[in-house]
C-alpha cells in the first residue's frame, strides 16, 4: 500500500503524478526485443560471413571450393536438425538458459576457428559444433521468448526480431570482410568470438528473461490489477492450446502452416542458389544479378516490418496467404517476362515476400497452440523449411542440367506457392486463434473443458 501527503495519508494527485512520472514508460519486452535483435544480428551475420573467408582458406590450405563447401553443407544440415532439439529444450527449460548456453558455446567455438589449419577442423568446429549450437539462437528459441512477452503486438515484435538477421547480413558481413583485410582471418574469427562472449553474453544475462513473470510483469505489460489484467491476455487460452506438442499434430492448422513453410523453404533457398545462374543463362551479368538480389534484400527488410505491423491489425492467415501468392506472382515474372525486366520485377515483387513468412508463421503458431510447446512446433517447421530448401536446390540444379532451362522448376515453384497461399487462406483463424477466440483459464478450470466461444 502507498502512503502520500494527502488527508489520512492518501495519495494526492501530485503523488500520483510524481509516481507515474518516475515509472518506466516503455514496456520491458521491447528491451528484450533489442537484446534478441542483437543476438540474431550476430548469429546470422557471422554465419553469412563464412562465405567471406572461402577464398583465403583455399589459398592458405591449398584446398578446393568444393571441400570448403562440404563443411558448409554439413553445417546447413546439422543446423536444420538442431532446431527441434533446441525448440524442445526451450519449452522445457525456458529461452534464457538455452540462449545463454548456445551463445557461450558458439562464441567459444567461433574464436576457436582461428586455431584451425585444415578442412577437417573446419568440418568439426563449424560444420558440427557451431552449426549445432547456433541452432539455440534461432527463431525457435528467440521467437518463443518473444511470444511469451507479447500477444497484442506479437506480429511486429517478431518482425523486428527477424529483421535483425537482415541487418546482420548488411552490417556484420562487411565488418568481417574489412577485418579480414586489416587483421587476417584468424584475428577476425577471434574478434567475432570475443564480441559474442564479452558483449553478447552480458547483454543477454542482464536483459533477457524467459517470461514476464520472472520479473513480476505480465504479457504485453498489462497491469495485473486492471480489468484487462484480470480478464485479459495473461490467463487466456485458445481452443487449440495443447499440453503436449504431439497433440497439435492431430489438428489441421499445424499441417497447413508447416506445408506453407515447407514451400517457403523450397522457393527461397532454390532462388538463393540459382538466381545468379538463371540470370547468367539470360545473358545478365553476375554483377547485375547481385545488385538485383541486394535490392531484394533491402525491400525484404522493409517488407517484413510492414507485414509485422499489419499482422497485429488483421487476420494473420490472410497476410500469410497473400505473401505466398505475391511470391508466386514473382515466380511467374521469371517465366513470362523477358530476362532483364524479369530480374528487376522479381527483385521488387519477391522482396516484399521474402522473409515476411517467418513472423507470420511463428505468431500464428503461438496464437493457435499457445506458447507452452511453441519451441518444438516451430523447430519442426524450421526443419521442414531447411529440408524443403535443400531438396529444391538439388532438384532445380538437376532440372537445369538436364533441360537447359529453369522454366519447369519456376512453374513448379509458382504452383506450390499458389497451393501454399490457398492452404494458408483456408486456416480457420477466427475459430482457432486466441486473438479471436479466448477463454480464461479460470473458466476452463471451472467448466473442466475447453470450449470455443466467440469474443
Amino acid at each position: 500500500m502507498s502512503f502520500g501527503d494527502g488527508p489520512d495519508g492518501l495519495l494526492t494527485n501530485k503523488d500520483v503524478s510524481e509516481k507515474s512520472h518516475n515509472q518506466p514508460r516503455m514496456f520491458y519486452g521491447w528491451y528484450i526485443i533489442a537484446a534478441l535483435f542483437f543476438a540474431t544480428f550476430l548469429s546470422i551475420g557471422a554465419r553469412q560471413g563464412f562465405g567471406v573467408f572461402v577464398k583465403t582458406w583455399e589459398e592458405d590450405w591449398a584446398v578446393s571450393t568444393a571441400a570448403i563447401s562440404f563443411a558448409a553443407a554439413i553445417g546447413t544440415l546439422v543446423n536444420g536438425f538442431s532446431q527441434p532439439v533446441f525448440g524442445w529444450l526451450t519449452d522445457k527449460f525456458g529461452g534464457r538458459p538455452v540462449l545463454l548456453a548456445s551463445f557461450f558455446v558458439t562464441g567459444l567455438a567461433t574464436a576457436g576457428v582461428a586455431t584451425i589449419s585444415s578442412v577437417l577442423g573446419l568440418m568439426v568446429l563449424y560444420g558440427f559444433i557451431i552449426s549445432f549450437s547456433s541452432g539455440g539462437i534461432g527463431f525457435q528459441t528467440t521467437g518463443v521468448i518473444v511470444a511469451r512477452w507479447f500477444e497484442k503486438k506479437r506480429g511486429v515484435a517478431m518482425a523486428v526480431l527477424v529483421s535483425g538477421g537482415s541487418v546482420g547480413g548488411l552490417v556484420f558481413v562487411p565488418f568481417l570482410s574489412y577485418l579480414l583485410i586489416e587483421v587476417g582471418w584468424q584475428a577476425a574469427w577471434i574478434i567475432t568470438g570475443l564480441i559474442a562472449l564479452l558483449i553478447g553474453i552480458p547483454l543477454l544475462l542482464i536483459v533477457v528473461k524467459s517470461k514476464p513473470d520472472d520479473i513480476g510483469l505480465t504479457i504485453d505489460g498489462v497491469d495485473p490489477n486492471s480489468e484487462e489484467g484480470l480478464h485479459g491476455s495473461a490467463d487466456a487460452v485458445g481452443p487449440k492450446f495443447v499440453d503436449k506438442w504431439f497433440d497439435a499434430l492431430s489438428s489441421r492448422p499445424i499441417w497447413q502452416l508447416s506445408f506453407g513453410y515447407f514451400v517457403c523453404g523450397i522457393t527461397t533457398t532454390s532462388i538463393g542458389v540459382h538466381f545468379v545462374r538463371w540470370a547468367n543463362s539470360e545473358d545478365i551479368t553476375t554483377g547485375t544479378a547481385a545488385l538485383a538480389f541486394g535490392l531484394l534484400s533491402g525491400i525484404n527488410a522493409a517488407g517484413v516490418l510492414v507485414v509485422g505491423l499489419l499482422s497485429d491489425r488483421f487476420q494473420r492467415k490472410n497476410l500469410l496467404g497473400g505473401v505466398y501468392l505475391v511470391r508466386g506472382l514473382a515466380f511467374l515474372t521469371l517465366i513470362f517476362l523477358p530476362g532483364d525486366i524479369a530480374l528487376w520485377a522479381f527483385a521488387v515483387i519477391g522482396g516484399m515476400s521474402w522473409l515476411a513468412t517467418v513472423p507470420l508463421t511463428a505468431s500464428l503458431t503461438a496464437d493457435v497452440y499457445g506458447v507452452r510447446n511453441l519451441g518444438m512446433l516451430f523447430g519442426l517447421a524450421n526443419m521442414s523449411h531447411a529440408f524443403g530448401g535443400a531438396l529444391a536446390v538439388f532438384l532445380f540444379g538437376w532440372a537445369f542440367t538436364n533441360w537447359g532451362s529453369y522454366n519447369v522448376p519456376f512453374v513448379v515453384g509458382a504452383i506450390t506457392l499458389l497451393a501454399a497461399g490457398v492452404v494458408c487462406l483456408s486456416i480457420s483463424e477466427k475459430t482457432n486463434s486466441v486473438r479471436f477466440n479466448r477463454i480464461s483459464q479460470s473458466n476452463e478450470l471451472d467448466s473442466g473443458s475447453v470450449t470455443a466461444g466467440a469474443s
Partner: protein
Amino acid sequence: MPNPLETVLHHSEPIDPTLWEWLSLKIDDVLGLHSSAMVFILGAVTVLFPVVVMLLVWRRHRITRRD
C-alpha cells in the same frame, strides 16, 4: 550438385564469395573509405548498440528500485 555457398542472404546460409567480392568492390567505389575506417565504423555500430541497450536497462532498474 549446386554449391551451398552460392546461397545468398536468406536466413543464415553463408554468402556467396564471388558475389561478396563484387559487392565489396562496389562499396569501396561508392564510399571510398579506407578499410581500417570501415572496420572502425562497422565495429562501433556492432559494439555500441548492445552497450546502449545495457545502459538503458541499467537506468531502468535504477529508476524502478528508487520508486
